């Protein structure tokens, strides 16, 4: 099963990388009110069903993939 983990800087956490990207888009003429930069982690996991896979990946996020003080995570599982 394929799991995609989206990791984002938590709201309120200063994200200078996002600000730099937003300002660069402005230079290209795009109007962007806000930009935040996170990361994506793709995983292949063995699991009986999507719910089990999601629960396992949630543990991975809590223990390693995200630092919960500064980041939030979102998990998408597809067969």
């Amino acid at each position, binding site marked *: 099963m394929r799991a995609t983990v989206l990791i984002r800087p938590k709201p309120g956490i*200063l994200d200078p990388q996002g600000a730099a990207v937003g300002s660069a888009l402005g230079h290209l003429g795009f109007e962007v009110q806000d930009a935040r930069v996170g990361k994506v982690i793709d995983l292949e996991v063995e699991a009986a069903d999507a719910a089990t896979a999601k629960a396992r990946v949630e543990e991975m996020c809590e223990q*390693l993939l995200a630092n919960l003080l*500064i980041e939030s995570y979102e998990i998408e599982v597809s067969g």
Partner: protein
Amino acid sequence: MASPQPRIGVVTYPGSQDDRDALWALAALDAEAIAVWHEDPDLPDLDAVVLPGGFSYGDYLRCGAIARFSPATASVCELAGAGGLVLGICNGFQVLCEAGLLPGALLRNESLRFVCRDVPVTVERDDLPFTTRCSAGQRLVLPVKHGDGRYLPPPDLDPGQVVLRYLDNPNGSVDGIAGVCNEAGNVMGLMPHPEHAVDPLLGSDDGALLLASLVDAARERVLAAY
């Protein structure tokens, strides 16, 4: 009886850079400095441990996040849990935060630039094993060299855990925090590099005050064990 030399270990991870400077500085300050390899599950009999600066495991995922799983880090956690003295410098500070031995996290510098210069800091606490040779309010000049040094404390950080504060915040750290300790006061982390500032020839020897405090504290523990 001659004053005993305390045994202070310096852990080398893949990507550590400042381990040799830390070993050299500790030896210059009359400690027996012992190199510890990250794969060694058993620490030699040590009176204190230093986690040095660098880019352990290439800063993959987050700075310090992977070093947490080294066998040596597990032993350092045990040592810290038993009240042992642990000092993390720069990447070592990031490792201690990721390992949960110190509160908070270190993020990308606000400027997005790598900063490499001498900065002034003030000493907030002079009662720790890392600061007894300093006095509260004292100004030290120490070099910083990092891209990810913006300290973010947890919302419930006890202000008493702040050990050093930047006078001229180089990275956007919250409240200018440059160094913190754990609640018990036996674990400390800081972004500036005391090991690069132990000889006036290198611009400042203020770092020797912090490291010599650690050597003093480790020596006292050796004497207490007699």
